[in-house]
C-alpha cells in the first residue's frame, strides 16, 4: 500500500475521531484535553513522513521525521554538548540575570511615581524594538564564548520583564494599600504580603514571554561567532554542509527545550497563582 493511501485514510479517520472525542460525554475531561492535540500532532507527523516517502523528497531538502529521530539518537552526545553550551550556559544564565535585574529595577523604580511615569512608556517602546540586532555588538564586546550570549539574553529579556513587573506592582487598589496601612504594615511588609502576591500574574507573564526570547537571543548570538559547539553554530554550519537531518534534530532539541522551559514556568505559576481567576478550577 502506498504512503499516499495511508495518509488519505488515516487523516480523515483521525479528524473524525477527534470530533467524536470532543463531542462525547468525556469531552471536558483531562484525558480528552490531552489526547486531542496529541492525535492532531501525530497526524501532522504522519503527513510529513508520508509525503516525504511518497514523493521521494531528497533528504538534503526535507528529511522524514524517522530520519531525524535516528539522527537524534546517533548524535546524542553532540546534541547534548550543544544543548549545554547554548541553553544551560547561554540562555539560562542570561535569563536568570536579566529577569532578576529587571525585578530589582522594577522595585526600585516603583518607589518613585515620577520614574514610573517616565520609564513605563520607554520600557514599553523598547520592549517592542527588534533588540536581537544588538547581538553582533555584544558578541564583539564580550567575546565568542557563552558570556556574550548571556549578555544578549539579558538585554532581550530585561525590558519585557521590567514592564510587566512595574505594571504588576501597580495592580493593588488604594483601598487594599490603605488597609495594610491601618494594620501598621511597614513598606516591606506591604510589599511581601500584598503587592508582590498581587503582582505575581504579571511577573509570570513576563517570565513566560522571556523564556522564548532567551532561546532566540542565545541562538541568534551564535550566528555572529561562537566556539565550535552550540545550537546556533551547529545549525548554521549544518545548513552549509547539507547535513539537514542534523539541523532538524537540533531544531527538535530547541523545540523541546523551549517547550520544557515554558512548561516549568507555567507549572510554577499554576502553583503560586492558584488564587487567580485564570487558574481556578
Amino acid at each position, binding site marked *: 500500500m502506498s504512503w499516499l493511501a495511508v495518509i488519505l485514510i488515516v487523516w480523515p479517520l483521525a479528524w473524525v475521531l*477527534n*470530533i467524536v472525542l*470532543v*463531542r462525547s460525554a468525556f*469531552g471536558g475531561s483531562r484525558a*480528552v*484535553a490531552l489526547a*486531542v*492535540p496529541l*492525535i*492532531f*500532532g501525530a497526524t501532522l507527523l504522519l503527513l510529513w513522513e508520508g509525503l516525504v516517502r511518497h514523493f521521494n523528497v531528497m533528504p538534503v*531538502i*526535507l528529511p522524514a521525521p524517522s530520519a531525524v529521530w535516528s539522527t537524534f539518537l546517533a548524535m546524542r552526545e553532540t546534541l547534548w554538548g550543544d544543548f549545554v553550551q547554548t541553553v544551560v550556559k547561554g540562555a539560562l544564565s542570561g535569563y536568570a540575570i536579566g529577569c532578576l535585574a529587571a525585578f530589582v529595577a522594577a522595585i526600585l523604580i516603583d518607589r518613585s511615581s*515620577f*520614574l514610573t*511615569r*517616565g*520609564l513605563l*512608556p*520607554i520600557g514599553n*517602546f523598547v520592549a*517592542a*524594538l*527588534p533588540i*536581537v*540586532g*544588538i*547581538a*553582533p*555588538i555584544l*558578541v*564583539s*564586546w564580550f567575546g565568542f564564548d557563552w558570556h556574550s550570549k548571556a549578555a544578549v539574553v539579558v538585554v532581550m529579556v530585561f525590558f519585557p520583564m521590567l514592564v510587566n513587573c512595574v505594571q504588576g506592582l501597580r495592580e493593588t487598589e488604594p483601598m487594599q494599600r490603605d488597609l495594610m496601612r491601618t494594620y501598621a504594615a511597614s513598606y516591606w511588609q506591604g510589599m511581601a504580603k500584598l503587592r508582590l502576591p498581587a503582582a505575581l500574574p504579571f511577573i509570570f507573564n513576563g517570565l513566560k514571554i522571556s*523564556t*522564548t526570547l532567551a*532561546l*532566540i537571543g542565545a*541562538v*541568534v548570538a551564535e*550566528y*555572529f561567532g561562537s566556539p565550535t559547539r552550540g*545550537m*546556533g553554530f551547529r*545549525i*548554521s554550519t549544518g*545548513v552549509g554542509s547539507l547535513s*539537514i537531518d542534523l*539541523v*532538524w534534530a*537540533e*531544531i527538535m532539541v*530547541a*523545540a523541546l527545550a*523551549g*517547550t520544557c*522551559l*515554558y512548561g516549568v514556568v507555567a507549572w510554577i505559576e499554576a502553583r503560586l497563582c492558584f488564587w487567580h481567576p485564570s487558574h481556578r478550577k
Partner: protein
Amino acid sequence: MRAALPILTVIAVIGVLWYAAVPPMNIRVSLDLAERMGESVTPEGVAERRALSIAQLLISNPDRIGETFRLERPRLPTPGQVLTELWATTGAMALEGRGFSKRSLIYHGWITLRSTLAGFALGLALGLAGAVAITYARVAEKSLMPWAIISQTIPIVALAPMIVVLSSQIGVEGRGLPKAIISAYLCYFPILVGMVKGLNAPTDQQLDLLKTWSASGLQSFWKLRLPASMPYLFASLKVGIAAALVGTIVGELPTGAISGLGARILIGDQFGTPLAIWAALLAAAILAGALVTGLDAMQRTVLRRRGEGA
C-alpha cells in the same frame, strides 16, 4: 505635558549615562590607535596597557579622552555619531537624489518594511482564520490551541535557515517569502489569542438578542462578534506588528541576505564598521516606532467612529 516631563527626563538621563560610558569603553581602542599613529601614550605597548585597569588608563591619558568621542570604529559610538551616520545614509543621500541607492538605509528599510508587511498580512490572515475556527468549532480549539502555544515556545531562529533552504529548493526566487513566513510565524499568535478573546467578548444576552431577531450565524458574526472584537484586534495588532518586524530582521540576520536592515547589521559586523550596525539598529527602532504609532492612530480613529472615545 504631565506625561512628557518624566519621559524627557528619563531620556536625558539615558543620554548622559551613554556619553559617560563612551570614554571607558573606547579608551583602549583609542590608545592603541594613537600609538600606531606614532603618538606618545602612557604607558607604551599593548601588553603593558592590558595590565592596567580602565580607570588608570583614563587618569594617565586625560588628553586622549576627547578622542574617544570621535573614533571611526568605536566599541561604543556616541548618540551623536549614530545620528550623524544615520543622516549620512538616509537624509543626505535623499537630498543628493540617491535615496534608493543600495548604500542608503531608506532602500534597506523599504526592503525590511515590505517583508514585514507581507508577513504581517500573512500572520493576520492565519490568526483571524484560526480565531474564527476556534470560536465556532470546539474540536479546533482543543486540537489547535495547545500547538499554537507550543509553536511560540520554539525558537524560530533555529528554523529560519531551514525555511530559507526549503523555499529556495522548492524554487521560490528571492528572500521575500521566507522572511515573510518567519515574521508571520512570530506575529500570528498574539492576533490569534486577541481575536479569540474579542470574538467571544459579546455577552450571552447580546447573542440571545440576535437570535430572537432570527439573525443567521453569518449575520451575528458581522454585526455583533466582529465589531465587538475591534478593541482586542487593535491591541493585538500592535503587538503583532512589532513581532513581525523582529521576525523579518531575524530572517535577514543568519541567512546571508544582502538587503534589508538585518543584512546591514550582518554586513556591518563582517566588515567591522560598528557605526553602520548602530545606524541600522536605530533605523529599525524608528521603523518599529512608526509602525506601532500608525496602528495606534488607526485604532483611535476606528474606536472614535464607533463612539468608544479615545
